[in-house]
């Protein structure tokens, strides 16, 4: 891949080289021409060559560059010869290798070959559990979906969690126990560790570092271990977890509490930089509750109102009725100002920040006051503890405590301020006080800020023992390393955001021989039974009264331990004092976990690397995300390189210009520049360790200058553009609740222009099911859950950065982000785009081999075995949703790589030269049809759930039978907000959209964006 990239970068080609954007002229053009329109990218406004190439040609680079130079004669000779030989070869099928059937010796009772089993378990990320149903085909895990019974999931799933099956089979996972590079056994590893522990007798000089632990059983083991070795110390470090909510609760309530929000009860939500639908352990639940209060189908429906101030556009913020881009210091100052206004004792007296318009603040205060007890203030994970304390105090002052927010004891086994914890450990190591260090799961050699010099400190430790899934940066420095089991490979338990416990169960034995920390700690405690199954059962047997086997069965079946949620506390607010708000700074660096790779733990997962990040649609790179005004002030533009100096150090990042970013804030994603992630993740992007600080995610920037050279960023933003601006096509339809109520029957914003229906093509006759889909733009946050869920369900390959640069990404569903308004503070709209399954599909008549045809249930089906790759269909598709396999992206042989084990056996793996696209999950329709047929009934509403629909945290996607008037999809289609995309083309798509409705405060101009 690298060779190809270097070769490609030699070319003087707009797609390879990119073009420098002139921000001033973009700003001018936008103000002059496009004030009213919707736009997707800055390239679109600038009309760069690159954009033109993507816009005018469906496939900008039709052919792969020829590797060898063939002269004309040789080419013709080869052509003739291959024609002749092809004729001969066609007479006989090449003898296929005889396949074998390998049945069981003793067939497990519950397994029916060909029918998957589902196990209720949980995937643990950042210590917290999100419930999943894991699908297993004869012992082979292929997919995870959300568990509807789990309070943190309710059936939804985050993209990183969907992608975990790929990480499970990752051949770069660690596979053997090593001592300084030499192979050892697990027994030797345990023996060496026990020896080290016993040598210290009371545990002095012994330190343990883990990620956040919510597991009751691991917590119990660690407490016992610390009792046995009283001078040993346990530290926790997890860059995904924010210390601020806990630290804020300590100063506001004096207790280790965490807030649990009830967004279903909140009429008005103020989010202080909180991306609550997308980050943090309760994200999926909050997204669903929030969306349920926001969904509008008719003028009678009510909706909540979201006020959002944030530094960088977030999926949550893009839904806001009033969004204001603010620097972190301004957000803190606004919190202080509001607290003062609502009479919070001890609130720091700050005035209203300059960037917040007075009318905006007044309307916000009115709105909060009017909805006291039914409002909610949420502080973001990257805000300081002071802002969290202020948010808690505001909720108390508004009477929201106990109504929309309640407090529970922290689900963590030992809640700590982890930044301090890591600093303590590092200091002890530097001082030579540590002779034995155990690191379980964490990767501090990569995730710790460089200023801490954790790698140097590790060298001072006599013996270090690492247990991790990969042989990562930390493993390379440790004396001993052992592979850790994946959560789908072993027994365990973990708590969710509200304290609910899930017993996690394995789907198969560890694929690469990994071990569980439960097993390690049990061995260190000298227990007789160290098998994780026994450990978990013994631990829970002691906790459960009554019939244990009944408890065990019920709990594993449902995926949650009954009534295990933390009990609600009613703490009293202490008077606030000594709250320090961050000082104003001209330019700050805001380090955010990557939307896909998190803190880099998913860096070797190709699905997540290639997932176009929300808004920027960047793949395979991180960047310095700048507001257009900041970029202009610094004299840089997209893809320039920017050298950023902070108090901590220096880093050079490529520039991404992001409309809606707060001026004076550089946002950059964590998780890149991995040195030991594996073949996929190594060397992708830039490591931010040199500029990170333990003090918080925001640091002051002392210098930012343009560095030499440029760096090409692979963004999918200009790809597959529907040309919404050339002629006014009304792609995005958006209005306010007031507008809807003014015209409840036929809102103008839903139907800005009347179109004539065409009668050239006859209607298709139907007498069976008619599948259809509705996507609700009012609640779509653009979080990408659907994209990864689809990728996992439909065996969609990744293509690599070079191929993304020329527009060949293969995702069947993409989320188009549209902007409306000016360059600095546009409104955002997300439009998930997959095959629309047109009734009068333009792709069908142009296929010369009838490889894409209409079926009797309305699906536009793609027949891979007929396709000869003319690509006429894609050329004729106005929605640009068809994807072509230019190269052999997918692994055809099941023996080629372990990764092919993650494939869904119900979906064909496509080969080179074949067109593909969304099938409405036809394999799921077929499975339901066969099941219903065998039971002699019709398919029920809700029986066919597409992969994207099942993943969606906000239930924005509804699928079902349009022939059934009572089906949920039929009801959604009857909404007055329903519109067909590009309806003027009379393609009559089966996927339709519900127009975006917002609910701005009456006192503020709805079009001004405040």
């Amino acid at each position, binding site marked *: 891949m690298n060779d190809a990239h270097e070769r490609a970068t030699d070319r003087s080609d707009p797609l390879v080289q990119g073009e420098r954007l002139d921000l001033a002229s973009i700003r001018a053009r936008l103000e002059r021409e496009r004030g009213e329109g919707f736009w997707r990218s800055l390239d679109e406004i600038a009309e760069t060559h690159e954009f033109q190439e993507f816009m005018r040609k469906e496939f900008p680079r039709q052919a792969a560059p020829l590797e060898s130079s063939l002269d004309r004669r040789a080419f013709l000779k080869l052509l003739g010869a291959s024609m002749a030989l092809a004729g001969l070869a066609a007479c006989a099928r090449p003898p*296929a290798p005889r396949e074998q059937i390998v049945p069981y010796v003793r067939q497990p009772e519950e397994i*029916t070959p*060909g029918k998957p089993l589902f196990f209720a378990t949980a995937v643990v990320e950042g210590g917290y559990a999100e419930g999943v149903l894991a699908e297993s085909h004869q012992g082979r895990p292929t997919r995870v979906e959300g568990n509807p019974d789990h309070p943190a999931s309710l059936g939804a799933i985050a993209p990183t969690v969907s992608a975990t099956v790929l990480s499970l089979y990752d051949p770069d996972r660690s596979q053997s126990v090593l001592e300084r590079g030499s192979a050892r056994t697990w027994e030797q590893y345990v023996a060496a560790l026990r020896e080290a522990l016993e040598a210290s007798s009371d545990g002095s000089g012994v330190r343990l570092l883990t990620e956040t632990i919510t597991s009751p059983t691991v917590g119990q083991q660690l407490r016992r271990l610390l009792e046995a070795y009283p001078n040993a110390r346990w530290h926790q470090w997890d860059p995904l977890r924010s210390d601020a909510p806990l630290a804020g609760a300590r100063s506001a309530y004096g207790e280790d509490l965490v807030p649990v929000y009830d967004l279903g009860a909140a009429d008005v939500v103020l989010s202080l930089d909180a991306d609550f639908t997308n980050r943090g352990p309760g994200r999926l639940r909050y997204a669903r509750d929030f969306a349920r209060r926001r969904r509008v189908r008719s003028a009678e429906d009510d909706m909540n109102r979201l006020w959002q101030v944030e530094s960088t556009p977030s999926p949550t913020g893009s839904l806001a009725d009033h969004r204001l881009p603010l620097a972190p210091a301004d957000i803190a100052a606004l919190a202080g100002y509001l607290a003062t206004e609502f009479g919070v004792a001890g609130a720091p007296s700050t005035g209203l920040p300059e960037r917040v318009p007075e009318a905006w603040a007044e309307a916000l205060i009115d709105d909060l006051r009017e909805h006291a007890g039914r409002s909610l203030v949420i502080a973001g994970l990257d805000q300081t503890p002071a802002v969290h304390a202020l948010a808690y105090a505001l909720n108390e002052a508004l009477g929201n405590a106990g109504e929309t927010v309640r407090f529970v004891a922290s689900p963590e086994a030992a809640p700590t301020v982890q930044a301090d914890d890591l600093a303590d450990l590092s200091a002890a190591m530097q001082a030579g006080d540590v002779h034995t260090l155990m690191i379980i799961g964490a990767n501090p050699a990569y995730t710790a800020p460089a200023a801490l010099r954790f790698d140097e400190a590790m060298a001072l430790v006599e013996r270090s023992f690492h247990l991790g899934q990969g042989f990562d940066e930390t493993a390379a420095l440790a004396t001993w390393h052992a592979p850790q089991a994946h959560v789908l490979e072993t027994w365990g338990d973990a708590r969710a955001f509200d304290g609910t416990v899930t017993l996690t169960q394995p789907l198969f034995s560890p694929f690469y021989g990994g071990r569980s920390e439960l097993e390690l700690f049990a061995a260190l405690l000298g227990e007789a039974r160290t098998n994780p199954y026994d450990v978990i059962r013994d631990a829970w047997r002691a906790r459960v009264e009554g019939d244990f086997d009944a408890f065990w069965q019920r709990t594993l079946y449902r995926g949650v331990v009954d009534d295990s949620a933390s009990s609600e506390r009613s703490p009293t607010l202490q008077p606030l004092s000594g709250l320090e708000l961050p000082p104003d700074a001209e330019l700050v660096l805001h380090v955010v976990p990557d939307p896909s790779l998190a803190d880099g733990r998913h860096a070797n997962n190709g699905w997540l690397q290639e997932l176009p990040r929300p808004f920027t649609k960047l793949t395979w790179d991180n960047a310095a995300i700048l507001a257009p005004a900041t970029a202009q002030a610094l004299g840089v533009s997209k893809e320039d390189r920017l050298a950023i100096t902070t108090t901590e150090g220096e880093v050079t990042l490529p520039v991404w210009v992001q409309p809606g970013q707060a001026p004076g804030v550089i946002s950059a994603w964590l998780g890149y520049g991995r040195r030991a992630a594996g073949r996929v993740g190594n060397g992708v992007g830039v490591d931010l360790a040199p500029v990170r600080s333990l003090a918080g995610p925001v640091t002051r920037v002392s210098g930012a200058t343009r560095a030499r050279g440029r760096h090409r960023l692979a963004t999918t933003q200009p790809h597959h553009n529907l040309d919404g601006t050339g002629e006014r096509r009304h792609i995005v339809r958006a209005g306010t609740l007031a507008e809807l109520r003014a015209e409840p029957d036929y809102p103008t914003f839903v139907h800005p222009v009347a179109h004539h229906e065409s009668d050239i093509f006859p209607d298709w006759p139907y007498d069976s099911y008619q599948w259809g889909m509705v996507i609700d733009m009012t609640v779509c946050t653009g979080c990408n859950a659907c994209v990864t869920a689809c990728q996992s369900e439909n065996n969609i390959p990744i293509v690599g950065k070079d191929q993304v640069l020329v527009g060949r990404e293969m995702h069947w569903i993409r989320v188009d982000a549209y902007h409306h308004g000016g360059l600095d503070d546009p409104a955002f709209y997300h439009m998930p785009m997959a095959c629309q399954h047109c009734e009068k599909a333009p792709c069908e008549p142009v296929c010369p081999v009838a490889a894409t045809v209409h*079926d009797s249930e309305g699906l536009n089906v793609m027949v*891979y075995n007929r396709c000869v790759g003319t690509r006429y269909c894609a050329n004729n598709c106005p929605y640009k949703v068809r994807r072509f396999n230019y190269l052999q992206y997918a692994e055809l042989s099941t023996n080629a790589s372990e990764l092919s084990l993650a494939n869904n056996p119900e979906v*064909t793996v496509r080969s080179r030269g074949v067109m593909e696209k969304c099938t409405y999950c036809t394999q799921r329709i077929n499975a339901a049809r066969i099941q219903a*047929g*065998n039971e002699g009934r019709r398919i029920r509403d809700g029986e066919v759930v597409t992969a994207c629909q099942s993943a969606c945290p906000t239930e924005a996607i509804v699928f079902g039978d349009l022939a059934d008037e009572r089906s949920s999809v039929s009801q959604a289609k009857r909404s007055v907000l329903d519109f067909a995309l590009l309806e003027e083309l009379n393609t009559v798509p089966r996927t339709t959209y519900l127009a975006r409705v917002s609910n701005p405060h009456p006192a503020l101009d709805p079009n001004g964006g405040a």
Partner: protein
Amino acid sequence: MPQHFPPNTNAFVRWAILGGGAFVVALLVALPIFARTMNNAVGVPVAQPIDFAHNLHSAQLGIDCRYCHTTVEVAASANVPASETCMTCHSQVRVGSPQLEALWTSWENDQAVRWNRVHDMPDYVYFNHSAHITNGVGCSTCHGLVDQMDGIWKTEPMTMGWCMECHRAPERFLRPRSEVFNMAYRPPSDQLVLGSELVAAYHIDTDVLIQCSVCHR
């Protein structure tokens, strides 16, 4: 312009055209025959690690198909039996027979018997046994009189054209559900009448049967 070719060249051209035409016709006849028989291994016994005789077990001993092929009514595949299924009898019957050595080895070493696949669909075809059983397609309709075979081989070409013969007109082949596993079943003389009744009784949507998406995903 001088004449380049002697007059008898015309005859050559004439014969070449006729011969070419005949060749094309012969090809059109021969290729489908070839494709449907030899190239698809129709009638060619497939060697197996154990010389399992369907005729002995099925016809002579009267064991139902579903005793071994347990999942045929509920799943896509018909399930080749686990060694344990064989051992339900063979732990008592013909113990020590050299013919069953592969079975003993499997049972004792906990290693599967590796059978050779006889009916191999392309990977883009998703055939489902349970749907066919439910809708009255008999075992013998596709697999022939397996109960008369001393080995195992394909009796039908299992090409797409062959599938479509039934998918276009299922009434030609359907039998009552009660007769699906009856290897001695012979279609009645009024098959088309019976078949049409069955299509209606089983609510078979004949429009769906000819859709690509039914088998290809």
